């Protein structure tokens, strides 16, 4: 064991980099006190003290959940995993005899549900570390891999770190349009954007491939922010993952189904199930930050953010979907997008219980809490896709 002698002295009289409280010393770290250079308009009526108090109230909500979290939550996620695996094998097995029309419909439906559940309630949430507290290596953010083309590790970087930290900050959070769509009026209009609705319509059924390409961060590479080695590594990981995914759904399953003369039908079944999951995931995810009522932010609104301000940005930058319990489950509880963005790593089964408290806080502090049924939220995002295809009207 060697002892590093060049270790900076951490004792009190050692010179420490001193900076005004409102200036961040490290990216992502929050200021203790003060306010951002510019507070978002929707929260401009709140004082620093009110924002700090709001932060404490939300912290208390989280602490309450962490204190209650236990055996019943563990049982919940294990039950979901069992249900999902049951749907998956029964769906795939049924597709093996899918030359019978009823079997095709049943198999495709079961597999579609399995893939939706796997992607949203299991994959997304487990990869967020919502279940890490169980210390079960099989249900852990560092080991989980999902039935989705993009490798889990690549997605965790762009999603958990970049998107959740910089939620809706134009220029920082590339989830605002995924480098493909113009989703905010503050994004510069280019003639390319005329195709906005077309790109979005084409993206939906192949959403998982869109995400996979997005996670490669090609823009960062072009701008020299990502090394060639890093890109090559990511490409290789994606290639391996895509190959196994492709083989499973479009080669192995149809090949086995050929034994019963159902090869072609099985292929259509897996293609359909993937498309259904993609269209659904695309719809749900677009409802998270794009419906009317959600705000986007400039970098000066983030500069000097306190914990309370960070919470405010998460709330007013996100939108919920209202609906039944089944609906919430099918969205992987991303229908509680606001609560998810406040507390990305509390177990998903707890968001429903948190939601009324968060809504009450928003009401009390005069902050918008955007929610609506899925058809309304999807309509609202599509309206935005169309509207922003056109150049801004000259003032």
């Amino acid at each position, binding site marked *: *064991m*060697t*002892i*590093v002698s060049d*270790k*900076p002295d*951490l004792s009190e009289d050692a010179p420490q980099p001193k900076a005004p409280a409102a200036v961040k010393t*490290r*990216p*992502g*770290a*929050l200021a203790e006190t003060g306010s951002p250079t510019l507070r978002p308009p929707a929260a401009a009526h709140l004082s620093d003290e009110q924002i700090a108090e709001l932060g404490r109230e939300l912290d208390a909500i989280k*602490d309450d959940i*962490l204190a209650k*979290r*236990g*055996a*019943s*939550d*563990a*049982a919940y996620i294990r039950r979901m995993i*069992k249900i999902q*695996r*049951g749907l998956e*094998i029964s769906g*795939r097995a049924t597709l093996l005899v899918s030359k019978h029309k009823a079997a095709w419909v049943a198999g495709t439906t079961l597999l579609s549900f399995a893939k939706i559940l796997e992607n949203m309630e299991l994959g997304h949430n487990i990869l*967020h*570390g919502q279940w*890490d*507290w*169980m*210390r*079960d*290596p*099989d249900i*852990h*953010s*560092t080991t989980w*891999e*999902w*039935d989705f083309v993009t490798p889990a590790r690549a997605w*965790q*970087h762009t999603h*958990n*770190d970049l998107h*959740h*930290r910089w939620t809706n900050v134009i220029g920082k959070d590339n989830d605002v349009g995924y480098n493909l769509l113009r989703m905010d009026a503050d994004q510069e209009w280019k003639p390319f954007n005329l195709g906005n609705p077309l790109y979005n319509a084409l993206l939906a059924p192949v959403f998982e491939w869109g995400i996979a390409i997005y996670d490669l961060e090609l823009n960062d590479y072009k701008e020299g922010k990502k090394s060639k080695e890093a890109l090559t590594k990511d490409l290789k990981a994606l290639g391996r993952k895509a190959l*196994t*995914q492709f*083989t*499973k759904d479009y*080669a*192995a*399953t149809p090949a*086995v189904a050929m034994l019963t003369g159902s090869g072609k039908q099985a292929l259509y079944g897996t293609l359909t199930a993937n498309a259904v999951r993609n269209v659904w995931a695309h719809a749900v995810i677009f409802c998270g930050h794009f419906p009317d009522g959600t705000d986007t932010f400039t970098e000066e609104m983030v500069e000097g953010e306190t914990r309370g301000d*960070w919470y405010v940005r998460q709330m007013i930058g996100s939108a919920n979907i209202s609906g039944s319990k089944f609906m919430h489950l099918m969205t992987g509880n991303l229908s509680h997008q606001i609560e998810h963005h406040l507390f*990305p*790593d509390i177990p998903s089964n707890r968001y429903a219980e948190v939601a009324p408290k968060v809504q009450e806080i928003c009401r009390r502090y005069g902050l918008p809490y955007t929610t609506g049924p899925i058809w309304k939220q999807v309509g609202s995002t599509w309206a935005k896709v169309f509207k922003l295809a056109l150049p801004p009207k000259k003032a």
Partner: protein
Amino acid sequence: MIRLRKLARAASLLTTPLAPEDILALFNPVFSARQLRGVVTRVVPETADSATIFFRPGRGWQAHLAGQWARIGVELDGVRHWRSYSLSAPAGQDPAITVSDMGAVSGTLVRNTRPGDVLFLAPPQGDFVLPEHPRPLLMLTAGSGITPVMSMIRTLVPHRPDSDVVLIHTARTPEDAIFREELAELADQFPNFRVIHWFTGERGRIDFSSVAGLEELCPDWRQRAAYACGPEGFLDDAEALWETETATAEPASEATLTIERFSTKLAGGAGHDGGLVTFESSDREVEADGDTPLLDVGEDAGILMPSGCRMGICHSCLIPLRAGQVRDLRTDEVHGEPGQLIQTCVSAAAGPVNLDL
């Protein structure tokens, strides 16, 4: 077996990203090769606060040697906890652990384990095993320290008429003495085995300060290979006695002592004092205060630390803890068990900390 592996690989084409065993585990929980599990087959109460738990391990388990221990994972309120327990079953038979209620984990095992429950397992290990060549033996045990020795006695005594074993077991009262009846029966049945129960509630602790006490219980103790297992104080005393003996005896003494220690408590101070942080793979040690996130500590020491949001939400900075405890800077909770993945961006050292990086 090889064909089975080929079959599994073929099947995995259909189950990826899962393995076929993940699907099979729907039907039988011990089918996972990634996580070794065992199904509890029988639970036998031993004393008022101890019980023997028999289990059927899944693939990946190795048969244990008498005296070895295994790590057992149990879930308490949804959270996995690992503890080490000696196997009390004789070598060659289905494994069993005998657990005394001494804390949250052992208490749960003793009181709430039922046949059919699933235990998480790590294969048996340990050097506290019988000598390779037959020798007269002296076993010194106290309290639950009897468990590994019980496995040795059960393995040796009934099957080896040439064996010669003396057991001195101390417990507080006869009611607290685990395996008391079975030991008495073995001693009745096999002349090559002698058991001495010493009840500290009646007679106080065995005096190890001089050889006189031991001499009285087992006059030929110097000719025996001795094994001791029990609480720290008991072992320290025994060790001191044997050391004095081997250092002073004329001619040189053959007396040997093998010891099994259960270090139950990690050396970790709580509170805000910080401590020495050791990055084991990087071979670095840094003194850290109790308020600086381990992520910053590592980065300042030039370690390539994984990192992400730096605010405790993204779980990109997880590093396995090898030893010690950390304080969650958000909640002030002090926690940590070997193997646990910790969020370095919101955790500070609470006493000495060893990290697997």
